[in-house]
């Protein structure tokens, strides 16, 4: 990257199954207040632009960012909305700074999945001419993907279940997590079958919450905090949409996104060069496939990687020490919380699930049917 973009501070709400007493904008106010306090800035005077992230269907509202200027005190400022995953909003915020247009940007995402029927929205995102009338949703897509993955690379349901045991177990140490559980592989496999091989516990629960962060130019970031986290690499790619145009056991878009981000950040060997990874696993099998895509193991070795214990909280390269999406994070907010968790880890503020001495991390956001779009960000502390 030409210049450096620093993340000064990050904030989240606690994630819950249904925040019935809070309006969507209450969530935005909460995370904005928290992040402004953490960054030690004045919201009205210092924030130059706001990038929000939400999707109209999930909010049940055309232009879901309509009330953002109110909720973020950004009257007459530049506010624009990324309609996808939160990691992309962080990337877009970084572009605002790299372009020289802004020195300090607030990035915020919000979603209350509990107010709508997600299955229908997922179906509405699927090709309306050939596939939508089949009634597909993301759970069915994930099941087909998992089956293909099992078939091609001999991954087992037990290995999928281990992801759930690890992530929901890690969530016990994360005060923001919605579902912290002490599980066994057997319990995961015996929970209600949704779409073979995906059982209830292998699917991200319905969740409400928000996330925010402050991005700044190098100079401003250094003034605001002694420990800014730098975005040193970024890559994002789309997969084809039609399932017939893809091999679901492969994740070419993620591989390309990771390669691009690693090249930018000067990472030759991700296993050695990274200290932790926070990735977006809406379903347990995705974590194994995404670890392959991110180059944390060879192709087809995702199962072996979880078996090895390397991705455990105390392992060589912890994956989702926060508990991941399986512990409950809403769509659109998902990718931004991955970045926020990585920021806290690098700032040494992760609390009980802190990875000791973490210097470099990867945050990954994704969206769409069978992970149709991927965004990879490399985050680092220190440096020149």
């Amino acid at each position, binding site marked *: 990257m030409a210049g450096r973009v620093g993340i000064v501070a990050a904030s989240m709400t606690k994630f819950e199954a249904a925040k019935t007493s809070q309006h969507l904008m209450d969530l935005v106010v909460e995370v904005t207040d928290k992040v402004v306090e953490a960054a030690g800035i004045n919201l009205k005077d210092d924030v130059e632009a706001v990038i929000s992230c939400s999707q109209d269907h999930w909010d049940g509202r055309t232009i879901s*960012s309509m009330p953002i200027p109110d909720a973020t005190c950004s009257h007459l400022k530049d506010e624009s909305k*990324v*309609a996808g995953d939160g990691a992309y909003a962080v990337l877009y915020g970084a572009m605002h700074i790299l372009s020289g247009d802004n020195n300090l940007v607030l990035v915020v995402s919000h979603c209350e999945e509990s107010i709508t029927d997600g299955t229908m929205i997922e179906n509405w995102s699927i090709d309306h001419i050939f596939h939508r009338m089949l009634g597909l949703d993301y759970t069915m897509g994930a099941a087909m993907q998992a089956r293909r993955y099992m078939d091609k690379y001999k991954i087992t349901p037990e290995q999928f279940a281990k992801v759930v045991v690890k992530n929901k177990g890690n969530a016990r140490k994360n005060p923001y997590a919605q579902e912290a559980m002490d599980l066994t592989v057997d319990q995961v496999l015996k929970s209600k079958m949704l779409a073979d091989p995906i059982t209830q516990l292998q699917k991200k629960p319905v969740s409400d919450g928000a996330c925010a962060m402050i991005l700044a130019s190098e100079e401003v970031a250094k003034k605001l905090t002694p420990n800014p986290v730098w975005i040193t690499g*970024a890559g994002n790619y789309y997969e084809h949409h039609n399932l017939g145009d893809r091999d679901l056991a492969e994740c070419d878009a993620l591989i390309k996104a990771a390669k691009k981000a690693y090249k930018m950040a000067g990472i030759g060997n991700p296993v050695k060069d990274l200290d932790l990874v926070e990735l977006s696993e809406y379903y347990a099998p995705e974590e194994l496939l995404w670890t392959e895509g991110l180059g944390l193991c060879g192709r087809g070795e995702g199962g072996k990687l979880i078996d090895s214990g390397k991705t455990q909280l105390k392992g060589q390269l912890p994956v989702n020490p926060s508990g991941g999406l399986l512990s409950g994070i809403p769509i659109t907010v998902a990718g931004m919380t991955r970045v926020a968790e990585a920021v806290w880890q690098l700032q040494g503020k992760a609390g009980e699930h802190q990875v000791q001495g973490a210097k470099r991390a990867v945050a990954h956001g994704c969206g769409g049917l069978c992970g149709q779009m991927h965004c990879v960000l490399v985050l680092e502390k220190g440096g020149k």
Partner: protein
Amino acid sequence: MSNRVAIVGIGQTTHSGRRPYVNDGELIYDAVTKALADADLSINDMESVMAGNMDLFEGHALNDAMLNLYSGAAGRPGFKMNTGGTVGTMMAIQGWYHVASGLYDIVLVIGWEKHDEGLVTPAISTITDPAVDRHFLVGAIGGLATVSVAYMQRSGCKLEHAAMVRADASHAASRNPNAHMREIYSVEDVMNARMVMYPLNLLMCCPTSLGATALVLASESKAKKICKKPVWMKDHVTVHVEYGGAQFGIGEKRWTSHMEAGAKLFKRNHITKPMVETQVFEMYDPFAFAIPMWLEDFLVCEPNEGWKLVEKGALKLSGEYPVSPSGGVLCTNSIGDSAILRVAEAALQVRGDAGEHQVDREVKQALASGFGGSYWSDLLLLSKTMD
């Protein structure tokens, strides 16, 4: 210092009210193919492909991903933005950030809408808060009728002036082969149209159209190599303010987001006489009062002068300061595409390639605007030269 960004390829579909045998992906493909042909490039040259529209209008979620085979985004970088009526200008601005950040050298941005496959007014009615003021505003027309009355009261503008605007627009659109409503109307025709919500009658409201527009944007070094007539995106401003039925421009209040956008853009670019220093303005003009009222609010002319310019004929295609020489949103309104179409049309005017509706003087600088939500303004300055 930002990397400079130029428009090096422009493509648009023809616009119409109904095309049952063309799907939204095919519309996108048509615009993309034309933009790439205009730039003399292939889709493989595009480093990122971004497409934006309004999710609820056709009812598709994540349709950037759904239609990425048609847009060319499959296997490439890109993501979607959605900011209401300004989504088109936002796509151009999103492309600008991609290139100006130094992360990309050449990108493709697309805006589209296919209104014949959805219901616009029920979707727009959901923009306001369900608990506070959703019952105030029905679609877009509720708010726009209110501000039109307020403008008439404070400025002296009459219904006839709005009719003149629409009649002028019809003459402009009749020369634009890609416009949707190309029928020529007299002032009398417009005055006799069916009233929809006072003071806006049917012809004073924009139609619901379908269409797509694509632009190829390139960095300075790339643009100079590959393009003979680059149009420079010299500056852009986005302003969003909080909505609310009670704040919707009633009484003396003016359109504060437009005022802020105009003030910022003109100050940053040392423009003191916008009607002299820019030669054409492609405005997002979704109702007939928009042109006189918003020329004032964008600080292009003095307060209460807009309708007098209309009366003088100054804003016609052949006038001293042509506004929306393409016929504007009044004649073609495919919402997700409407604002990027303003950028495309302004760029064509700068290049001198607008054809029958090219203005009759050299265009050194042009303005293009987007409007969305209740108060959301994008204003762009395009230029023939970089400085």
